[in-house]
Structures are given as C-alpha cells and as structure tokens.
C-alpha cells in the first residue's frame, strides 16, 4: 500500500497555561530561574498538521479511524535558565 502524497501545511492554535517556579540571584545582574509550565492547546483536531494531515484533511486515515475528532493537547515544560538584568533592579 502506497502512502498518498500530502501537503505539509501549518496550523496556528490558541493556547493558555500556568507556570510556577523560583528565581535566585547569583550575581549582580544575573538571576537563575527554574520554572515549570503547563500549556493547554484546546480543540486540536487529529486531521491537522499535528498528525501529518493537510489543512483540507487529506492524508488523514479516515478509512481506519472514522471521522476526525478534537481534543485538548496538554504539554508540560520544565525550564532552567538565566535572567540578565538590563536596568536597575527592584529590591
């Protein structure tokens, strides 16, 4: 069985989330930051470029799965980083 050719189109989706973390001053103008973030991307259909389907839905294997459906994608992100102060610092 040959894989049908697909258009590699893109998709922009609204997202929102929460984040929490902590900062620690390690130098006069450098701050260490550790944070964790949960991002929610609501109503993402499974016949989109997230799963190798074109914007018109072509490439979606509906003959096996049936009709496309939507769900919320949740992504958890843990970051370690640096903050560099550009101006006067608030104490």
């Amino acid at each position: 069985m040959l894989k049908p050719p697909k258009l590699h189109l893109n998709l922009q989706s609204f997202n929102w989330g929460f984040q929490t973390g902590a900062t620690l001053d390690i130098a006069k103008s450098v701050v260490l930051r550790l944070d964790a973030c949960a991002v929610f991307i609501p109503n993402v259909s499974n016949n989109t470029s997230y799963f190798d389907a074109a914007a018109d839905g072509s490439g979606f294997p509906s003959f096996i799965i049936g009709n496309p459906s939507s769900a919320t994608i949740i992504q958890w992100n843990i970051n370690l980083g640096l903050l560099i102060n550009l101006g006067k610092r608030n104490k």
Partner: protein
Amino acid sequence: MKSITFLLVFLISFRFSAISQSNLQVLVSGGPTFTPKIKYNNSAGYISTVVTGSLGLVYRPVSTFGFELKFSDLSHPTSYLKNDTSNTVKIYTTSQIVLQRILAGFNYYLPLKSIKPFLGVITGATYAQTTQTAPQSSII
C-alpha cells in the same frame, strides 16, 4: 510641526529613560517538554518528549509583579496517531513537526529574601507544521 517633533523626541527619550530605570530582564532558558497521551475518538495522539529552548523578556515594574513575553521552540518532536485495531494508522500519521509558540503573561513573585518563588498565567499561540513524513520504506 517642529513642536510636535520636539514633543515626540522628548516623549521617546523619556520612555527609554523610564525603561532603563526599570527592572527589564532578558530570559534564556531550556528544558524538556512532555506531552501526555491525547485522547481522540477511536485513536490516541502521541507527541514525543523533546527539548524546548526559550527566549524572552521579563519586565518587573515592582518587585512582586512582572510581565513576561517569550518565544519557545520545541526541537522537532515526532508525532503520530495510534489505535488498537490497526498499526497502519501510526504509519500513515507519523511525521516530524515544527512546534513553536509565543506566550505572554504575568507572574506574581512572593516577597521573600533570597529565593523568590512565583506563580503566573500565560496565553498565546502555537504554530505547528509537518516537516518530515515517515520514510516510504516503512510503509506496508
């Protein structure tokens, strides 16, 4: 016209001065992003765990409150759909994707001395694009 130009220059220089006197920070960070199983009707979606790099700006007008704007790039996760009845679904839907997002929000910093914990809310947009499909040799 001359007075408007003068006023404009005055306002811009005043604004730059205000920013330089405030707590503006550049954020550079990185770490893993995990995506739990996505539950669709008749199938489940999977996006692999990848490293995310972020670049942003944090503006803190006061020590306990900050605005944040950041751009994040997930390094080409692999995504696919899967169902229990046929492995063909995974073959048809496996691809590498570009996932990028821009987020804006605000944080509340607890007023502690050394380590400053914070809580925040963010919102924005995610951009997804297919970059590479599964090789033809893997297709049944």
